[in-house]
């Protein structure tokens, strides 16, 4: 099944609720957040995209001509035919929320937790949404563009052990 056939199927099912774009060999469809679960489910069940290769996010705060703040992408692949498709969606402050796709692909588990850890995007329906890379006590979301690269002093804030004490 080629990209064009998939897009035709998607148009037949979802009408004009999504847009498409293309760059080099990357084919993308951009879906609003409320339709993303339905589209991904359709792609998995009907179009054979059985593997979620990658799920990541970005903060478009300073990006030229960006209208939404947080973008999340799902790179899907059909392991039989090798066709790739990128599904993209956006969400916004103050409560960035997206549906979790854990029910479709169990591989989404940690990737969603990472996006939550780095950007604070909450995935509704995720069974175990906790911080994954940073300590639980951490309060900021470090990959947001308004967080400085050198942090806010967290890395200096530990007790000092001297030679006589140890």
């Amino acid at each position, binding site marked *: 099944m080629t990209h064009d056939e998939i897009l035709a199927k998607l148009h037949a099912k979802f009408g004009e609720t999504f847009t498409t774009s293309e760059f080099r060999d990357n084919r993308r469809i951009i879906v609003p957040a409320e339709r993303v679960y339905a589209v991904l489910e359709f792609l998995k069940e009907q179009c054979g995209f059985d593997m979620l290769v990658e799920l990541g996010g970005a903060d478009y705060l300073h990006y030229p001509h960006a209208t939404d703040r947080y973008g999340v992408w799902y*790179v899907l692949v059909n392991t039989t035919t090798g066709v790739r498709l990128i599904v993209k969606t956006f969400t916004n402050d103050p409560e960035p929320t997206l549906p979790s796709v854990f029910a479709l692909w169990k591989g989404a588990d940690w990737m969603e937790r990472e996006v939550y850890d*780095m950007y604070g995007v909450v995935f509704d329906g995720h069974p175990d949404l906790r911080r994954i890379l940073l300590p639980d006590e951490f309060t900021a979301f470090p990959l947001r563009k308004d967080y400085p690269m050198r942090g806010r002093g967290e890395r200096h804030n530990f007790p000092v052990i001297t030679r006589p004490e140890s």
Partner: protein
Amino acid sequence: MPLELADAIALPEGPEREYLWTLNFGPQHPATHTTLRIILTLDGETIVKAVPDIGYLHSGFEKLGEHLDYNQYVTIVDRKNYISPVANEIAWFAAVEKLMGIELTPRCKYLRVIFNELMRIHDHLLCCGAAALDLGGFTAFLYAFNQKEKIYDICERAAGQRFHPSYLRVGGLLADVDDIWIDMVRKFVRDFPKAWNDIVRLLNRNRIFIERTKDIGVLSKEDAINLSCTGPIARASGVVRDLRKDEPYLAYRDFDFKVVCAREGDCYARYLVRMEEMLESCKIIHQAIENLPPGPVNVDANSKVTMPNQLAVYRSIEGLIHHFELIMSNRQWHTPVEEVYAAIESPNGELGYYVIADGSGVAYRTRTRPPSFIHFAVFPYLIVGHQISDVVAVLGSLNIIAAELDR
């Protein structure tokens, strides 16, 4: 025995619960090789539940990618999967060059293929050697390290640094290789199968090794796909998928090699797949080094993406301006305001980069698709129902690299 996540997380209620106890594995444990932590809940010696706790090496790689330009970031990328540094560089520049629309020269493609395959051998040697070390076989580790040192020498000859070569640049390489390097690679290809055979004779029919790895940590094909596994781990479970064949990048179309697969999906199958892949890589290197095309390694200087050579900078005004344009942080490359995903078959699986460019010389966002991260998420499913001592066997077969796991 694959389990649903609910089974892996939820503990039994009622009287059985009293028998359970908790064991903390890591973060400083020899078998983790680096730093990760697993909280095991045990019934006697049987593992009822395993909760990995990672982030002990989280160092903000992706944040750094938003502050360093496309060439500078190569030093950071190197340190991601430090067992196969050049493979990381190839993946990074695959994404950057796809973004900028650069077509490499044939010689550069061949050299990148040679490095990618050397790194595959390097990575698998460490993985198999260290897996054997954890299971009590010290000799295989020493044999593996002898070969690893030879690959280090090859990297050092080409790039000057033995561990983190930082050898690739946008549109080419740091420098061309010389004849001594080619002879070193030829010698390595000639000698490697013998050393490989030594390791195989030590381990493949070793009763202890087989008992410790066979039928341990079985991953079925459906689960491997559903859990996003790629690379040797997926291939050991019967997923016939190799980006070198499926989406040939660089010059992989030119070479004759096999994709190694297995059906069992256990630790032993993963070990065997890795061992066989080393020989296939050796075959690719042999073909590439014998047919290495002549010509430049960098793309044409008029395309203004690679550094001009030193003579041009010192002796001509065009060269100087060209150099200046690439170095000054307000000029550099002109990238499209676009985003791109590119992936290669790294030793550990699909290593991809999602790069968002905003038109300047610095990426707006660099997202890595780290195979170690995704493979470690599989660990709780594999280990439940096994014994404590199987933890190191499963960890060793998954080849978790903490720097790539945590980034």
